[in-house]
């Protein structure tokens, strides 16, 4: 770990030289199925490592964080869910738009105890599910509030906030809150609130990361998402390439296999030598079937290479996360967090 480099404002944690020093809000997006929640969780652990305090928020009511950490469903309350390597804390919050709205009314307008009346009359339903964009302003508003929050000594309460955000297809819209509420409020308190939220989201304190697999559709969506963010003036972070499989075989073997020229005779000899087949006919049969597995693997590796090149063109920082043989269980999260730290993401 390096020495503090320059001012980190009023951070309570120890400064370190990472790719995202100065970023307090990490928004993690990704196409469905790419493991965005897993990566957000691992990033939170990595950022908390070494004695920091990090808040991990989820905004879509899926209880993905609870599942990732193997916990019962989380309430609308910031609570400690994990200890990071070297003694940091990860807190979690499942943001419920309804609760966020009641909290907001109370905080800014001093309106108390009207929750039931509002709910009964359908106002809460209206605001959180029908009114365009309002739900998004409520959840991003709650998140940015946590980013800005200070304790009595004026220090930031959290060193960083990680948001498990909506999928790539929706992310620019979700974060572009001012635009989203434009139809609902061109002036007035909602507009004002949206502007405040937008101020944090568009600042250098925020980075929007994308999780992808080395497959055509997720990569395309990632590139589109980066483009969209740039157009709307929101800060693009890094790309996290998830579930990366090792090539496992030498380049020339893969190339040959791609063109259907893999030598299964040599493989058959190897199988016999390893005692996996006694009879030559058996060895050949197994070798041929294995050769087909190799060919499939080679084709996929080739495609992955192509996708990697496509990602390079986006000109953003990339991180590789390995495919975990046992899946992303709790131990897996710590392993991924470690990988992220090694690569300088946190």
């Amino acid at each position, binding site marked *: 770990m390096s020495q503090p480099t320059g001012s980190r404002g009023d951070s309570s944690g120890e400064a370190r030289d990472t790719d995202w020093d100065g970023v307090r809000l990490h928004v993690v997006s990704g196409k469905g199925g790419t493991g965005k929640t897993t990566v957000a969780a691992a990033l939170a652990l990595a950022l908390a490592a070494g004695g920091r305090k990090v808040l991990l928020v989820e905004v879509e009511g899926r209880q993905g964080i609870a599942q990732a950490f193997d916990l019962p469903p989380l309430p609308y309350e910031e609570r400690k869910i994990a200890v990071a390597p070297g003694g940091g804390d990860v807190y979690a919050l499942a943001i419920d738009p309804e609760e966020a709205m009641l909290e907001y*009314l109370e905080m800014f307008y001093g309106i108390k105890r009207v929750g039931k009346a509002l709910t009964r009359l359908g106002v809460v339903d209206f605001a959180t599910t029908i009114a365009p964009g309002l739900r998004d302003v409520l959840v991003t508003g709650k998140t940015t509030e946590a980013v800005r929050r200070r304790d009595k000594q004026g220090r930031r309460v959290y060193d960083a906030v990680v948001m498990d955000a909506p999928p790539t297809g929706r992310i620019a819209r979700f974060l572009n809150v001012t635009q989203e509420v434009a139809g609902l409020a061109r002036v007035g308190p909602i507009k004002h609130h949206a502007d405040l939220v937008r101020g944090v989201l568009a600042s250098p304190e925020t980075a929007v990361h994308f999780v992808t697999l080395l497959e055509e559709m997720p990569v395309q969506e990632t590139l589109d998402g980066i483009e969209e963010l740039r157009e709307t003036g929101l800060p693009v972070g890094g790309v996290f390439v998830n579930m990366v499989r090792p090539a496992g075989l030498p380049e020339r073997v893969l190339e040959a296999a791609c063109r259907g020229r893999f030598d299964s005779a040599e493989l058959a000899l190897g199988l016999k030598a390893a005692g996996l087949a006694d009879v030559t006919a058996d060895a050949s049969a197994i070798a041929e079937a294995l050769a087909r597995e190799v060919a499939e693997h080679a084709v996929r590796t080739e495609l992955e290479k192509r996708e990697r090149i496509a990602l390079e063109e986006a000109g953003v920082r990339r991180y590789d996360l390995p495919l975990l043989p046992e899946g992303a269980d709790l131990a897996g999260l710590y392993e991924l967090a470690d990988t992220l730290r090694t690569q300088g993401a946190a």
Partner: protein
Amino acid sequence: MTRTAPALDIDAILDDPDTRIIVCCGSGGVGKTTTAAALGLRAAERGRSVVVLTVDPAKRLAQAMGLTELDNTPRRVLSVDGAGKRRGELHAMMLDMKRTFDEIIEAHADPERARQILTNPFYQSLSSSFSGTQEYMAMEKLGQLRRSNEWDLIVVDTPPSRSALDFLDAPERLGRFLDGKLIRILMAPAKAGGRSAFKLLNAGFGMVAGILTKVIGAQVLRDIQMFVTALDAVFGGFRQRAEQTYRLLQAPGTAFLVVAAPERDAMREASYFVERLADERMPLAGLVVNRVHRPLVPSLSAARSSAAAEELDARGEHELTAAVLRLHAGRMQLAAREQRQQEHFTSAHPTVPIAQVPAMPEDVHDLEGLRQIGQLLAS
């Protein structure tokens, strides 16, 4: 004990003339749209007249079906001389949510009222936002297609919702809103011709109206009031419309297919979905598990394979064989993990039939690719 799920007979569903609607649902990124397109193509090639309604297809898949624009109109993809006497047809369309909403307004309101609604800022925002409108409009479009009776099978791909179940709730929610008390509060001033009308309401209503004015501002409130008044005059029973769609989904001619990938989160979502469909008495046909990894040498276990690789390494010979064996071991492990995920599902839902589609190295780009998926689904 390992439970084996019953096999899902896709062709029986596609060939049954009573099947009029197939709904593909599941969490994001599991291949719902591809499954819907593949089913549509297969049904057409088996002699049915099919329309695939898709919400947000990936570019290349859209191209594969010949959809170049989001124009809300079914486009013909192909005609085939079907297996029997019947000639199959495949149409496909992409939902344009705003246009669908506009069309409902235009069809049901007189021109002046339609103009009032269509130019209302709140309406414009509502009709192009994602907050449930997409789900609602997808269901609305489904209803329209079904009523038109032009196709004998509609395959619909559900929107990529934040929660995969939003499409079931959205119509009900919008209906509840438009028929609810809030609407009456919002409409009161417009009806009485002035803000003073709030005073006519009881104290609770008045307080809520006060808060609304304070928080969203008077102008927005007026926009919403005008919108709601105009809309209410058009529909009266918006809720009734939502209920119609809901009943359509419950009808015996509808088949729900839950789509998943053999991963923890996707299977968990699938489980939840199956339970929810049962609660709502929606007809579930089965589960489609996409992207299943199948080892080609299942008899050679991961353990034996790894041990042999280690043995070869230790002896310093057959380097390539060792590498291939490790690759195979990884594949066996992955297959075993995927198998466990499916077994979890099956022990919770032993009667739900399952169809598996093996993982493909490449995404589907053309009709041939879709045809292949269709074959795998049916085999």
